[in-house]
């Protein structure tokens, strides 16, 4: 079949880059923004950015927020929002720590933790899809609910997990590949690649886009709207659990505020990546690059010798400029 006949973007004289431009203008924009920022770091602080240490530090701290942002991309694409995932992460983390203290087994704690995340996610989903509470309202409620639960369960006390270091699974989760690369970053990248593929090429990703675009059309096209939305919330829960596993393994300590502070950076990564709050449009690749940007911004700014209290300003500037560019690109 010669589809190129009716597809000017695919005629031979056009390069691969212009095809990418035509199909994914926002992916191209975010890549350029990321490269500009990185160029700025390199020029501003070459002594830092020409050494591996700063990258190792990014790689060990990025994945927790990153996994949350990957999951949140699906929810935002639905045209919905989840504000409770840091608290879900807290509950899952408590379960991980408690089960590990009881059994001493990382695999069992791992499964219990992910399972807890999925159950919390499913409860969010039921509240939103079955009872019909708008997602922002429902998850403000469960944000306090899950965090409150952690506080009660943990009695405000932390749980040390140093024995994790004796297990081979510890190295699998957060060891250093070739003595250099944090394993959590390797896992994060593999999961990101899978999510990028699912978003654009898997039936599930396609259905999320349809539901976010137009629920009633999606239903008439034979898409199971309820199931698709539930899956997004359960996936968000699984990602929160996974994020908790990596974070707790890295620091080998549970504290009741686990997850706090990840909400806004994760959502910022989603929006800077070009996913629309109105739903039906977005990019998982964009989120991935957004995670790299948001995750490196603060350290990058500090390394350049700019005083710490400028970070928020530059942070805000980057986000504002990026989302303005998207709005302009989409208007054309």
């Amino acid at each position: 079949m010669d589809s190129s006949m009716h597809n000017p973007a695919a005629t031979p004289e056009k390069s691969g880059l212009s095809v990418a431009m035509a199909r994914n203008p926002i992916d191209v924009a975010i890549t350029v923004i990321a490269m500009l920022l990185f160029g700025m770091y390199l020029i501003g602080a070459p002594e830092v950015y020409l050494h591996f240490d700063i990258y190792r530090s990014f790689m060990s701290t990025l994945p927790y927020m990153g996994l949350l942002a990957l999951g949140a991309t699906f929810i935002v694409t639905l045209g919905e929002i989840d504000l409770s995932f840091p608290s879900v992460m807290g509950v899952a983390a408590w379960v991980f720590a408690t089960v590990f203290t009881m059994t001493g087994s990382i695999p069992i704690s791992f499964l219990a933790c992910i399972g807890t995340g999925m159950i919390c996610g499913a409860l969010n989903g039921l509240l939103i899809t079955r009872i019909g509470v708008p997602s922002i309202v429902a998850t403000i409620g469960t944000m306090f609910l899950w965090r409150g639960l952690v506080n009660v369960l943990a009695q405000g006390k932390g749980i040390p997990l140093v024995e994790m270091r004796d297990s081979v699974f510890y190295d699998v989760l957060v060891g250093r590949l070739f003595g250099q690369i944090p394993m959590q970053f390797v896992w994060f990248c593999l999961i990101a690649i899978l999510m990028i593929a699912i978003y654009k090429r898997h039936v599930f990703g396609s259905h999320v886009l349809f539901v976010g675009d137009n629920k009633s059309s999606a239903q008439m096209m034979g898409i199971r709207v309820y199931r698709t939305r539930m899956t997004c919330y359960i996936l968000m829960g699984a990602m929160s659990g996974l994020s908790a596993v990596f974070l707790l393994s890295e620091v080998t300590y549970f504290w009741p505020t686990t997850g706090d502070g990840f909400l806004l950076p994760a959502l910022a990564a989603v929006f800077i990546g070009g996913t629309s709050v109105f739903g039906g449009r977005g990019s998982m690749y964009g989120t991935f690059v957004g995670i790299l940007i948001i995750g490196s911004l603060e350290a990058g700014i500090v390394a350049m010798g700019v005083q710490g209290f400028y970070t928020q300003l530059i942070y805000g500037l980057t986000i504002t400029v990026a989302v303005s560019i998207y709005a302009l690109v989409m208007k054309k």
Partner: protein
Amino acid sequence: MDLSNSLLSLENIHMSFRRVDVLKGIDLTINRGEVVALVGDNGAGKSTIIKVMTGVHHPTKGKVYIKGEHVNMRSVQDSRTRGVETVYQERALADQQEIWRNVFAGREIRNRLGFMDVKRQRAEAAQLLRERMGFTSRAITTDSEVAGLSGGEKQGVAIARALFFEADLIILDEPTMGLSLKETDKVLKFVRNIREQGKSAILIDHNILHVYSVADRFVILDRGKIAGQFTKDQISREQLIDIMVDLHQTGQIKTH
């Protein structure tokens, strides 16, 4: 009920929205090789009937049979997998998604893991645009978003999509609405074609001339009930128009 020649049957279908009864006991059978027209005023319940038939709505009461089998309709997939294709009045397109994605929505060409064959879907959608719809405009490609299409073009995509996935029963809810004369002719020709291929169709259209020129049987709906049914050899076009006018004015069907 004799269901031997029936493709799709409704048995005592009731449907209400927020306690308002919209369908009040519908019994209707569509036979193989038959084109049935559903006519009636705005709000009579025509679109609601087809949404119950195809699984968009779950009826408050009553049963749907497809090919003699009772189907507990939960999703459009339930009718689609049994050979029923539908063009809804709302057209059921997602504006921000590419044409190829819309064409294959809900029945993607996929592998066992659920990953789509995007290349093949693009190619087949391109062929659909070219051959079935005669889209030659270079501005419109399979990668175009539906939002960029004109009203008629959107409708064209919805209709072409339904015809592309060959079905035993094709349901068209006001397919000619807003179309030019030429495009309207094309759609009506498609409907005649459906019968020539021995398949069935349900046509909803407010234009009695269109309806009379293609349908074998006319089902007249009035405020959620079937007010009367006639086959083409029972009444002339003028009689059908008279009946519709009478019904509108007096709320009753006069017997001729």
